[in-house]
């Protein structure tokens, strides 16, 4: 199923896997830019002191979550399998957009929470969007690249967490000095 979905993301689109891959990545960048800009706008919409308070609370809850739970709070699902039935540009576009948004499917790692929180703290929709676009390019672009080379990464999520979990805690805690200066 995983392989089928991964393949469908970059096939059956105008008969060209290159075009399908481009649609996938561009859709992911669009979804990600919207998510990042929204988080940045939310940050900009509130006073710096209130922003710092809200972010402090969210960072503290996330650090506590990462310290006690291996699996992050997430929607534990893949992208909609019905999209596979389209067999046209929509399969790539919808998958890309959903993966770019980030939170509508499995996120897998506590480190993901640094993205919306950092975008909120920057309080800049452009910076937020730019950061999320980097996420989309890495998440979906690398996935498309690996698929085009017939390379599938399976398992290893527990090993990946050994790296990402300490990084998540460190990155979240690094926000504290920034936030306390806003108070």
């Amino acid at each position: 199923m995983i392989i089928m979905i991964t393949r469908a993301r970059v096939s059956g689109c105008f008969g060209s896997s290159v075009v399908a891959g481009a649609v996938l990545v561009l859709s992911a960048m669009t979804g990600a830019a919207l998510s990042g800009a929204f988080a940045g706008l939310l940050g900009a919409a509130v006073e710096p002191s209130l922003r710092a308070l809200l972010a402090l609370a969210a960072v503290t809850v996330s650090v506590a979550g990462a310290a006690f739970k291996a699996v992050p709070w997430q929607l534990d699902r893949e992208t909609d399998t019905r999209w596979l039935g389209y067999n046209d540009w929509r399969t790539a576009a919808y998958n890309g957009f959903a993966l770019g948004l980030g939170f509508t499917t499995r996120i897998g790692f506590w480190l993901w929470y640094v993205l919306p929180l950092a975008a909120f703290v920057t309080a800049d929709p452009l910076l937020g969007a730019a950061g999320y676009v980097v996420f989309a390019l890495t998440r979906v672009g690398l996935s498309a690249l690996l698929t085009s080379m017939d390379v599938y990464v399976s398992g290893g999520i527990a090993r990946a967490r050994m790296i990402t979990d300490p990084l998540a805690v460190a990155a979240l805690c690094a926000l504290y000095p920034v936030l306390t200066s806003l108070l």
Partner: protein
Amino acid sequence: MPDLLTSPRTRPALALPPAVLGLLAGHLLGLQPWALLVVAALVVGIAQQTLP
């Protein structure tokens, strides 16, 4: 080692050193939120290739 990471008893203890390091780095180096955002985006994007 993966068992350690799923245990609610040991996870808090393992989380303490990176938490202190993060606090120190944020304070001494003056890390910017956008830099954290970009680094986290790169790392989590790569890590998500292992998602089931």
